[in-house]
């Protein structure tokens, strides 16, 4: 049993938790973040990459709209490397309500969301693939954001301010002494030992997993519901900027250019458990149809990968419990002292990635209030320097520029995403016990058209040759990576991706005979 001391234990390594541990550390608290897996492996890594301008909510949720507009500006400033300032458009496609645009513009004015109607011809000039039948277009300040860069940036900033981040440390128990939280127990999966963290406060930032955490504290359930949405990454950028339908928020009405792909999303279906998120075929078809409405020919574009994420929605008595789309996107802090009579524990739900910093500010403010301490939030003031010196906003050509620099001196291990051997080895040194998926989230290894077909074997080989892992683990990591890639491939297997899969199968099963390597007694899962 390892024993650690902290003022506050933050549970959950998504954007909220990473923002909270940074905020608490910057206010001088000794803060430790724990997560059951890697940073950004839950909801934060499973969304469409949209840094909201607020436009989406100007009619349906004005409070959220204003928060988004303010936070968009802050995040773009303090985490430039994670954000691409793509700009965005809301466009009315044939059949959409022509009046909605007026309500949109009025809402934008009222909520402080920068928005301006532009001529349709100008919109088509900027986005040549757009449906030529669009009849209104409104320009907004949407951007795209890499959730992993965002969360790793916040975590690295927290560490600089004295915080600690423990991944693959699932919480097993939360102990309270009478009415005061005393300690969080977790299990270090990679080190194979129990860990006790004595603390005076617990901040439950587990998102859709929040209820499991309150259960471990022996508290009644919190009203957080997993609202599942599917996303599909399409090869190439079909659009240059974020394109939204100019309608009341619905399914499949956003197309976001992120890195080398564009992502269409999403759906919204209530699920009972956040670990069990299907990618139903009918929802995939729904996304393709929605894509066609924005971009004629969308179905003939190449889909690379699909995934499901779960929003942590707060139940709101005003809407039906099965209608997750219209539950509040707003954040809510649940005070367990007020609700359950337990001191030193707060749960946060709702919110969205764009407002993660503000959510952190709110929950840490609430903690300070309960502790009777006055410590000001400074997270909006300090620029995070994470793999990005000097600070500059992301542009898609960054990696190409880097590879032009080192193309004769270094190998490109993942050609699709231009990931060099040096990048891989450096990430491996920082996360020597990471899986190929852990490294993928930071490097985009295997996320391009070949979906790991050429790079996985190289990566496993380098990890074994360079790193501390033995051949059993390297092989197990290769097996795990191929298995995980397939989870997001088979629901969208059509067009050129069928051809790619057949080629990848020729390589791994045909030429390499990977499936007949000695099978480990226990499959590597983390």
């Amino acid at each position, binding site marked *: 049993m390892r024993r650690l001391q902290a003022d506050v234990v933050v549970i959950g390594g998504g954007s909220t938790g990473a923002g909270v541990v940074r905020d608490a550390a910057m206010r001088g608290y000794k803060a430790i973040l724990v997560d059951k897996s890697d940073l950004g492996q839950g909801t934060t890594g499973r969304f469409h990459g949209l840094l909201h301008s607020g436009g989406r909510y100007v009619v349906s949720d004005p409070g959220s709209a204003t928060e988004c507009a303010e936070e968009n500006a802050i995040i773009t400033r303090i985490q430039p490397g994670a954000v691409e300032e793509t700009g965005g458009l809301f466009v009315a496609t044939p059949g959409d309500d022509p009046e909605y645009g007026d309500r949109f513009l009025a809402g934008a004015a009222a909520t402080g969301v920068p928005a301006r109607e532009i001529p349709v011809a100008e919109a088509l000039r900027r986005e040549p693939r757009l449906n030529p039948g669009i009849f209104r277009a409104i320009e907004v300040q949407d951007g795209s954001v890499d959730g992993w860069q965002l969360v790793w940036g916040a975590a690295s900033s927290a560490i600089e301010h004295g915080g600690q981040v423990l991944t693959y440390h699932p919480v097993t128990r939360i102990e309270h002494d009478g009415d005061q939280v005393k300690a969080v127990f977790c299990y270090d999966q990679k080190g194979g030992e129990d860990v006790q963290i004595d603390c005076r406060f617990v901040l439950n930032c587990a998102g859709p997993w929040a209820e499991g955490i309150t259960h471990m504290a022996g508290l009644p359930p919190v009203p957080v519901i997993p609202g599942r949405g599917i996303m599909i990454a399409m090869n190439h950028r079909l659009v240059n900027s974020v394109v939204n339908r100019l309608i009341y928020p619905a399914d499949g009405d956003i197309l976001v250019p992120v890195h080398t792909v564009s992502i269409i999303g999403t759906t919204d279906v209530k699920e009972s458990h956040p670990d069990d998120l299907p990618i139903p075929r009918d929802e995939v*078809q729904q996304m*393709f149809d929605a894509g066609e409405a924005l971009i004629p020919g969308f*179905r*003939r574009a190449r*889909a690379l990968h699909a995934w499901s994420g779960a929003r942590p929605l707060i139940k709101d008595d005003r809407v039906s419990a099965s209608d997750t789309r219209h539950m509040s996107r707003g954040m809510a802090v649940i005070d367990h002292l007020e609700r359950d009579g337990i001191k030193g524990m707060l749960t946060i739900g709702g919110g969205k990635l764009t407002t993660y910093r503000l959510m952190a500010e709110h929950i840490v403010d609430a903690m300070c209030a309960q502790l009777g301490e006055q410590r000001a939030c400074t997270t909006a003031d300090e620029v995070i320097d994470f793999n990005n010196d000097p600070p500059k906003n992301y542009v898609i050509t960054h990696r190409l520029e880097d590879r032009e620099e080192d*193309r*004769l*001196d*270094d*190998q*490109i*291990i993942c050609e699709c995403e231009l990931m060099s*051997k040096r990048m891989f080895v450096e990430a491996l040194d920082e996360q020597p016990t990471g899986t190929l998926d852990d490294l993928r989230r930071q490097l985009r290894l295997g996320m391009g058209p070949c979906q790991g077909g*050429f790079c996985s*074997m*190289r990566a*496993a*080989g*380098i990890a*074994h*040759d360079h790193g501390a892992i*033995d*051949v*059993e683990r*390297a*092989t197990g990591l*290769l*097996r795990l990576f*191929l*298995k995980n*890639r*397939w*989870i997001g491939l*088979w*629901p969208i*297997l*059509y*067009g*050129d991706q*069928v*051809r790619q*899969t*057949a*080629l990848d*199968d*020729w*390589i791994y*099963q*045909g*030429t*390499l*005979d*990977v*499936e*007949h*390597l*000695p099978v480990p007694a226990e499959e590597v899962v983390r």
Partner: protein
Amino acid sequence: MRDAIVIGSGLAGLTAALRLAKGGKTVSLISKGPGGLQLSQGTFDILGYSPDRVSDPLDAVGALAKTKPEHPYAVLGADAVREAAEFVAGLVPDLLAGDPASNVNLPTAVGAVRPTALAQPSMIDGAVKDGNAYVVVGLRRLKDFQATLVAGNLDRAEVPGGGSVSARAVWIDVPARPEEADTTGLTYARALDDPNVRATFAKAVAKQANAGEIVVLPGVLGLDDHDAWRDIAQIVDHPVCEVPLPPPGVPGLRLFRTLSALARDAGVRMINGSKVIAKRVEGDRVVSVSISSAGHAREYEASAFVFAPGGFESGALAVDSYGHITEPALGLPLSHDSAEGLIHGDFWGSDQALFEVGVRVDQSMRVLGPDSAPVYSNLFAAGGILAGATRWREKSGEGIAAASALRAADTILGEEK
């Protein structure tokens, strides 16, 4: 007007074209790209797993007729496969060796032990047998041969028939192009066609081998010089084994280039870079096929057609976003027309039924319609387009390709007589 048009330049297409040309036919071979051989490992697989490891592939082919009646081998039979293996090996005696009745187990580029029937002579000394000691030599500038991983897995390999082997890895740095850090296998292979380069290379390798060790090298030992590996083995003075890498695979390219040259020499007219987009039919016969070319389609007439375009990997079979499966070039009927229910989510689980979809054929390789009658009297199919096999999992691609191609060609030749 030709006697026969063959579509596709993989092993099936080249085999059919050569058989027809040697039988006295005028043949044109139309191909969209460089064919499937460079995607392959460059050996001649007959049947490696069925589903357990196979040691006697022709016996196992015979048994498939009972267990998998939809399998191409169930139609072709073991004798046809043996004849096809011998025919192809006879065309390229310096590139394929072995006994089609007996599998040899060779190390792969992840250190697995892979069964195949005929292998290139440059590979055979690596056959995994109890007591073997290997030194796996990685090239620092070649990323597709991770020697440490290969050696690690080979060292713990389950040796077919029992026993164990040992393996260790070493890395050397012999540049093919001194100025670059990232060199492809093909660049190495071209460089090693030069006797001076391979002497330098072999001397560097020789320093790494201990007494009694088999030297395992990436499959890049020369492209057009088929004796390059012998030179290297002689200087290294140890048994040498080259291991096929992911595409473009040099051993597969050797086969492609050699068979293509033989086809040209035999009078086959090669129409490369040409995608077949349509056919013209009169009665129960295909009269011509058309290719897309600059400005207009171009039509080629023939008495008989062998359709050997490959499978999903070449784009010869396609699935659209609604899940409809089609054969876009000629619009032939397939064993399934919807992907619904043919794919599952377990990567390491059972075969994905989608990849067994293809055209159905009769004993003479005539394409069958839904009523199980030939669609056209003079259209034959061969190779990866055939339904019923997951070739990469079974390790059956070349056996199916060559045997079906010979059957199709021999039907055409026989009908003329």
